């Protein structure tokens, strides 16, 4: 039929993405990546395509990359560290195709000494720890005293960095900004999945019952459970908070019918959509930074907290903005390692 793809038109962009185990609606980096591509598609006049691998092994990923390549796609975007091996081989095999690897660096096997970013590949990393740090500072400043908690999904690098950054942020606020927030070991938990909503809710309930007032949830569907629990409690008159992750989750935490008030105190964000958009744009403009590893961090505004945080006072927002500046200038350094921190 007419709607089926024809051979690639000469100057038309053919942009595809392969999702990892999540879907393009995961409100996390799969969705972010996809939204960036869709936006780019609108701006530059092409319709992006996504494929969903059948499993989570390298072979599954490779297959979909091959499918996109064989179908004539010239820019392939893959979100997630699970693609590191696939891109490592694909970038050589399909030298005529450009690759963007988000949240990882191409290397063979489990061997990180052989990292190789091909001429046709851009590897993008985010400083999640800086985002977590900012969110931690903001939450601490707003709440001032009390207990915080962290609920992660699986113990993967990005989630860990959020956790470590968050802890450092709270510590920083306690040390420098006059807050007294505690983060007890028992309140730092990796639930173990990204989809067990019920567990998220139940664990959050336990923490809130123990007096925790703010939970940083970096856990996909598990986080949805956490937000639900916070909404329930807040509706019942016991205000508690959640710090969102990846994107601005404010709208997910509404607890009034007018949909203005939310339990989302703030969110630790990384601008994946921006990254994928930028990459398409660079191809369009002929300055694709092939061979480079880009880090999206405070310095280049690749991470942050939402521009508008209705639950943060102006005063807090101002202070956080200062901290952000210090991050940008390098006056504050956030470690991306867990040394000396909880879990």
């Amino acid at each position, binding site marked *: 039929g007419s709607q089926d793809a024809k051979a690639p038109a000469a100057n038309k962009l053919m942009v595809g993405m392969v999702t990892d185990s999540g879907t393009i609606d995961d409100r996390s980096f799969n969705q972010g990546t996809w939204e960036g591509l869709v936006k780019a598609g609108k701006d530059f006049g092409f319709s992006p395509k996504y494929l969903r691998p059948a499993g989570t092994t390298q072979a599954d990923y490779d297959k979909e990359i091959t499918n996109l390549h064989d179908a004539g796609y010239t820019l392939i975007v893959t979100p997630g560290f699970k693609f590191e091996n696939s891109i490592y081989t694909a970038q050589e095999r399909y030298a005529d195709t450009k690759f963007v690897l988000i949240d990882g660096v191409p290397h063979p096997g*489990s061997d*990180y000494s052989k990292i190789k970013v091909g001429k046709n590949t851009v590897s993008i990393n985010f400083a999640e720890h800086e985002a977590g740090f900012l969110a931690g500072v903001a939450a601490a400043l707003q709440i001032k005293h009390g207990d915080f908690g962290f609920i992660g999904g699986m113990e993967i690098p990005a989630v860990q960095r959020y956790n470590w950054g968050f802890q450092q942020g709270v510590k920083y606020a306690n040390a420098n900004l006059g807050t007294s927030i505690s983060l007890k070991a028992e309140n730092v938990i990796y639930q173990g999945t990204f989809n067990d909503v019920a567990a998220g809710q139940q664990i959050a309930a336990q923490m809130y019952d123990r007096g925790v007032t703010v939970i940083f949830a970096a856990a996909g569907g598990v986080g949805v459970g956490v937000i639900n629990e916070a909404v329930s409690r807040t509706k019942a008159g016991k205000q508690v908070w959640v710090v969102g992750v990846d994107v601005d989750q404010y709208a997910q935490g509404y607890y009034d019918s007018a949909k203005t008030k939310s339990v989302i105190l703030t969110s630790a964000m990384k601008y994946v959509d921006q990254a994928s958009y930028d990459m398409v744009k660079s191809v369009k403009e002929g300055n694709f930074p092939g061979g480079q590893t880009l880090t999206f961090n405070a310095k280049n505004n690749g991470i942050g907290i939402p521009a508008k945080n209705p639950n943060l006072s102006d005063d807090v927002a101002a202070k956080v903005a200062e901290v952000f500046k210090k991050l940008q200038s390098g006056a504050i350094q956030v470690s991306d390692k867990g040394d000396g921190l909880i879990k």
Partner: protein
Amino acid sequence: MKLRFKLEVKKEAVVLLLAILLGLIAGAVFMALTGSSPITGYEFLFKGGLMNLERIGNTLATATPLIFTGLSVAFAFRTGLFNIGAAGQMLIGGFCATAVGLTLNLPKPMLLTLMVLAATVSGALWATLPGYFKARFNVHEVVSTIMFNWIAYWVVYYAVPAYFKGAFETESRYIPNDASLRVDWMAKLFDGSYINLGIFLALAAVILIAFILNKTTLGYELKAVGFNRFAAEYAGINANRGIVLSMMIAGALAGLGGMTLYCGYATSIQIGILPSQGIDGIAVALLGANSPWGVFAAALFFGTLYSGKGFMNAMTNIPPEIADTIIATIIYFAATSVLIEKFVDKMKRRLKGANSSCG
């Protein structure tokens, strides 16, 4: 006698082919309904699975674990048991094979042999308990194998990072070349595909299971237990032993399937996911009419669909979810159309009955 055997096989094959054809027609209707051209859709679906050596190899590699889980489910079925636990058995088998592969340093043939042994034995052991519970305490195997799936899931979940942590918490280290079922000559033959020695293991398993079921006293006993436990007991066949044994064999098959998945198709074991081949195995077994060669054919068919799906997505406007739905539709219709023949007969008879009693 030989002739009759051949005829029977032929009839089975015809029914299977008809079933698949009907499934494909149903899938086509579905594609048309969602505004895509079935012809292009199928063109790319099958091209994606079969258009070059590499893709054929990948299709075979995709089918390999399915052959094992299909056999596992079918074998249990034949002995009256519903093994819904192939996924867990795969995980355990795959994990143990990986563990051996990552721990021992031996020449490839020896290492692979040991890994096969580890996968078989561990898969078998994992299924032994549900079998024993069934035989001794009458615990329904559907429930117990579901429970064992989740236990396997969490055991592997914590064991992998604890003992074999790779780059990340979520997967094991990559297995060395010597521990992989992949071999250079096959990769070369199939233009760099993932096809691996697993397919030969699968073929051997099909032959072995067909042989056990049809030609051996063991198969005779197990089938008897499956059909009528009381009669088997009466004849002096130890039914409890049969149930346990049958689960063990089913588990061994699934365990081996796990090895072909994690040490052949993949190069490491991932946590946090029950392999989908476990449930797919049920469909494979049923489409294959629970006969070993039927399973083999059905698994190849599934393999083609699964591995061609992405190419169809890439070349047409059919999104991945629709591709999944189409595959499920094909399975539904293929599986039920084995019976449509019967249904039509029934309708005919009803009509005829009505006519003749009128006249």
